[in-house]
């Protein structure tokens, strides 16, 4: 549990800057949800038996969670590691680089979970989801956050400068968002693209959350959970591997 003091340090900073932190993490996805949801929704009768805004809310919950996790584990963690040298200072204490990696991933996942669960709360308040099944979306959001935080932290410990993250954002995150069934059902994609989507974590997050918002159990639930867990575990292991390498010189 030594990693917990790293989590707590980040929590304390977040707490001090709570207004700005909440605004940047929540305002954007909610504006997008209502703007696109109601705007496009007015043109579309229903998608997969749901209103378009409810359909999109499930996708947007996962996307916003992905973005919060990725920004925190890449840009914010990189600032702490590279700019502020906060990690160096922590390493003089009885903590190791493994503890820091674990604390940073857990923190980014927690922050991402808050984004996801707030969007869920808004969706419930606006009547887009009403079944008790939707409660399962809370742990699902944490799992999505964990997967993207772990992958983001690999990018962080590999980065030599800020530009490095643009490649991951532009070449990985943006296309992933387009093919993972966030805006439209992924099943209407050409088969090769759908296969790519199925190999990526966002698709599986959406596949869990959307049925829950609709009010029922997600088909192939454990498969989706398994893929997300695999991304989190592999990301964690690789992040530790590259972090040890970076800090051993």
């Amino acid at each position, binding site marked *: 549990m030594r990693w917990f003091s790293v989590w707590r340090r980040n929590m*304390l900073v977040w707490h001090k800057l709570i207004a700005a932190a909440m605004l940047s993490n929540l305002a954007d996805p909610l504006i997008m949800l209502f703007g696109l949801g109601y705007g496009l929704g007015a043109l579309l009768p229903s998608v997969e038996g749901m209103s378009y805004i409810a359909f999109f809310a499930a996708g947007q919950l996962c996307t916003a969670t992905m973005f919060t996790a990725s920004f925190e584990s890449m840009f914010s963690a990189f600032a702490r590691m590279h700019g*502020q040298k906060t990690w160096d*200072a922590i390493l*003089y*204490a*009885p903590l190791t680089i493994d503890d820091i990696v674990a604390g940073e991933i857990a923190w980014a996942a927690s922050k991402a979970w808050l984004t996801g669960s707030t969007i869920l709360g808004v969706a419930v308040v606006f009547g887009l989801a009403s079944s008790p099944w939707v409660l399962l979306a809370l742990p699902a959001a944490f799992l999505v956050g964990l997967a993207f935080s772990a992958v983001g932290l690999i990018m962080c410990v590999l980065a030599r400068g800020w530009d490095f993250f643009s490649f991951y954002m532009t070449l990985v995150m943006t296309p992933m968002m387009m093919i993972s069934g966030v805006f439209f059902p992924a099943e209407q994609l050409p088969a090769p693209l759908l296969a790519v989507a199925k190999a990526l974590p966002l698709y599986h997050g959406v596949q869990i959350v959307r049925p829950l918002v609709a009010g029922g159990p997600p088909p192939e639930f454990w498969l989706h959970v398994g893929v997300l867990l695999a991304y989190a575990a592999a990301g964690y292991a690789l992040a530790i591997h590259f972090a040890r390498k970076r800090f*051993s010189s």
Partner: protein
Amino acid sequence: MTALAARALRKSYGATEVVSGIDLAVAPGECFGLLGPNGAGKTTTLKLCLGLIEPDGGEIELLGEPVPRRAREARARVGVVPQFDNLDPDFTVEENLLVYGRYFGLPKDEIQQRIAALLEFAGLAGRGDAKITTLSGGMKRRLTLARALVNDPQLVFMDEPTTGLDPQARHLIWERLRRLTQEGKTLVLTTHFMEEAERLCHRLAIMDRGRIIAQGSPRALIAEHIEPQVLEVHGPGYESWMERAKSLAPRVERVGDTVYCYGEDVEPLLKTISSDLGYLHRPASLEDVFLKLTGRDLRD
């Protein structure tokens, strides 16, 4: 028992051997200095002793714990003042101490009890709520020192503790470090300020190119390696004067347009200096030893 012991310590980065088989022994309560030009391997040695990097060979024991195997346990009783301040800019002065204490697993009450005394020690009493960005260089340095004491360590490592500080700030740090020695803490510091080493250190080691080339108390090193008096001469005609000086002083060297004469007694030389030459007659210092042993070439 030694507070810190290293035997045959080695570390290479690629093909470059940065630490080439050094032996160190620091006694409890001692202030030990590690001196050397840039790139001598001082910081790498400190990192090895803390278990932050793995040695390629040799053994380290820090406060009775084998390092790196039990470095975590050793670090719980050690403080570190790094070469470059890395205070947490997201926090106030007091929050920095609180958050840092938590990394040691200390309960909040215990840390808060210590904060007042630590701020007093750092000359920052009443500044607990100040933001890090509003502090001067000297204040940041003192806060970094206070932060290193948050776990009440038995041994404190300091990497160039006064580099970049003005004389007032430097003297205040020196005073505080002496206070720590009086309290019985062991200090291990690197520096390239000879004055600092001469004032503070009971014993020191001079390092160059990854090796320890001399070790002992400042006085013993001066007595062992250098003549007690120095005469520096410069000005028009110094070259011809140097030829005469060579017969009167045991050791004469020229650096740029200055002549350095070393000897037991340089009084006879003083009489030969004409009025258009400038000179400085002084006792030999640690800096003379350092330059004699490590050479005068620039190190970058």
